[in-house]
């Protein structure tokens, strides 16, 4: 037994040494090529299609750049922030990573990103909003490679069953429609208040529709505690009282399948992307789904954000990383991304063809899209506000109290940055 144990350890040690030897041998065999790691996420919802797309991208890129060994690692959306942060802190993370503006701001503030403006040959070809999303303190830290859009999707059958012929497009119309749908056991609006749901697709669109903003224009203070913030939360509470929100709105996730939208117990949602619209159509039937414009409160607004590539501070070969970033943001790549994922290009010279109403509605929503507010402390503020919105939805605080409490806590958090 002792001999076997010793032998096992010896074999294990030898195997480890052998693997180390193989690894270093591979490096030298490539004659000093740069290794660039890109962390990519399921922007293409279908797993197989995503894998095929990124494998093809990697192969094509390496064929054109024999001196760069590109490795694209596909990761899930879940816990993205934590994984990236931990990896950068440990010095073992990616050279390039897909981010959204407020997340990029967090990594910028904490010293995790380097400027990426070297990958932009002509800033004029990018849509202004897309480029602005990753620009902090006058420097570009996020290279936009696509642009997301969200529109309003309706389950028309549920509205018809409730005798509602005009689909609601404003807050008032939604409030008016709530009682009739509630009588059928249907909430007019889906809302996700769970801790893991980003407020960018839950509460912030309502705040923007009320005419408010999360932060002041210069980003130095929060602004959600104005009358618009209270109004947006009060809208949710009024809806809840009228039976217009799912019973577990305070804690439920955005899942369409198995959620109120997919089960036919919620009639509409304002935070629907191309992928979630597909899921809704699959769940309740394509013929029962209509996609419309973003909702209107005081103003019409929606969330639509650029997907931006960030260059991490652990990258050691900036030129190689910028070369990869350029390829990701190229017009051909953005056209291909639209075909594969349905996301729109972030630059004017990328060609796309829209041939269905839902995609057209999503594209039209870009005109009133807000990319998210990437001010210092944006993620902390989001986390704090989400907690107090939960309190209000659980009847533990009024809209005024919840917003005031969140504002005090958020200001305290920002003051420590």
């Amino acid at each position, binding site marked *: 037994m002792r001999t076997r144990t010793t032998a096992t350890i010896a074999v294990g040690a030898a195997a480890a040494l052998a693997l180390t030897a193989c690894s270093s041998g591979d490096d030298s065999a490539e004659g000093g090529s740069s290794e660039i790691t890109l962390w990519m996420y399921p922007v293409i919802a279908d797993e197989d299609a995503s894998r095929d797309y990124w494998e093809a991208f990697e192969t094509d890129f390496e064929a054109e750049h024999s001196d760069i060994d590109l490795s694209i690692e596909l990761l899930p959306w879940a816990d993205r*922030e*934590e994984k990236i*942060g*931990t990896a*950068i*802190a440990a010095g073992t993370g990616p050279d390039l990573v897909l981010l959204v503006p407020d997340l990029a701001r*967090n*990594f910028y503030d*904490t*010293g*995790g990103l380097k400027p990426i403006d070297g990958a932009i040959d002509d800033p004029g070809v990018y849509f202004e909003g897309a480029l602005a999303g990753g620009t902090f303190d006058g420097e570009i830290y996020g290279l936009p490679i696509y642009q997301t859009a969200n529109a309003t999707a309706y389950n028309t059958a549920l509205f018809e069953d409730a005798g509602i012929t005009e689909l609601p497009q404003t807050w008032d119309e939604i409030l008016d429609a709530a009682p009739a749908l509630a009588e059928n056991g249907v909430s007019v609006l889906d809302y996700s*208040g*769970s*801790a*893991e749901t980003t407020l960018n697709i839950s509460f912030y669109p309502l705040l923007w529709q009320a005419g408010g903003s999360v932060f002041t224009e210069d980003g130095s203070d929060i602004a959600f505690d104005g009358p618009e913030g209270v109004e947006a939360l009060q809208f949710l509470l009024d809806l809840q009282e009228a039976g217009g929100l799912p*019973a*577990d709105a*305070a*804690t*439920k996730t955005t899942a369409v399948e198995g959620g109120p939208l997919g089960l036919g117990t919620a009639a509409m949602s304002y935070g629907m992307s191309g992928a979630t619209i597909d899921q809704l159509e699959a769940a309740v039937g394509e013929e029962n789904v209509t996609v419309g414009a973003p909702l209107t409160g005081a103003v019409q607004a929606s969330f639509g954000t650029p997907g931006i590539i960030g260059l991490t*501070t652990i990258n050691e070969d900036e030129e190689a990383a910028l070369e990869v970033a350029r390829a990701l943001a190229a017009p051909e790549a953005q056209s291909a991304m639209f075909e594969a994922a349905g996301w729109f290009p972030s630059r004017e010279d990328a060609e796309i063809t829209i041939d269905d109403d839902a995609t057209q509605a999503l594209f039209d929503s870009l005109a009133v899209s807000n990319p998210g507010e990437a001010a210092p402390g944006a*993620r*902390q503020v989001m*986390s704090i506000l989400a*907690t*107090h919105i*939960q*309190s209000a939805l*659980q009847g*533990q605080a009024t809209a005024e109290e919840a917003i005031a409490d969140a504002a005090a*806590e958020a200001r305290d958090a920002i003051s*420590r940055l």
Partner: protein
Amino acid sequence: MTSTTPVSALGRQKRRGSTTAARSGMWAGILFVLPMLVLFVIFRFVPSLGAIGMSLTDYKLSGDYSVVWFDNYTRMLADDVFLGALTTTLVYAAIYVPLVVVVSMVTALVLNRLVWGTGFFRGALFLPYVTSFVLAAVIWLWIFASDGLVNGLLTEAGVDPYPFLTGNQAQVLTSLAVVSAWRGFGYSMLILLAGLKNIPEDLLESATLDGANATQRFFRIVLPLLRPVVFFVLVIETIAAFQVFDTIYVMTGGGPSRASYSLVYALYDQGFKFFDFGYAAAIGVAIFLLVFVISLIQRRFLDRSNT
């Protein structure tokens, strides 16, 4: 001619021999312990020192930092979120620890009285302990969800759904404590069972002959003799309560409205969501100090009970 050896010389030889054997045994012991000691120092002790050092800085993702001395600690004392997490953790511990100790004690007593199938039941009851915390939490999430198994049955029976994970703090923490107790009671059960096996049977028989009923035997004989073991179980379960994270992370995300936002969750948020590593390290040190103080109190109780 015969030679004789003085008795005193024999004694010296014997002592020399035993000293050599003792030294040999000591070195063997050290050699056996050394690998674990080295691993402990590398993976526990040094990182702990690092965390204490980090708690005195404003360490950033980029590796840049400046020494801020005790700023993170003074901030902690004025931080309502931290103080709320401390309260939540204490409430959770107040629910979880008695629950798991009682469940462990009852199952240990039942197992101790079993005359057949002891091994099977012991293994079956220990099984949740070797189950992944995350897996257990996912299963219980399905059971406790608003539209989950229990609420589905309640609805079928015409009873309103119970907000296991969406209600107030007492409801949510109780639900989480039930899950943690289900998952963790097996270990404490085995420790208590070992303690029960050490209680002399003749003591219990004598008490029975003297007319003591089962309740009197338990409270007058079993529990006093089991006291050191019970205190040990209390302290390890209290430590487990202070370290609760996985179950909360999977089942409630610290919510709703921070109803289940524990100290370790606060540490996780500060460290891995907001990348405020210095403050996160300070929270870690605070948790260590809390657990350390509780352990010292436990040690005092143990010492007293042993004398």
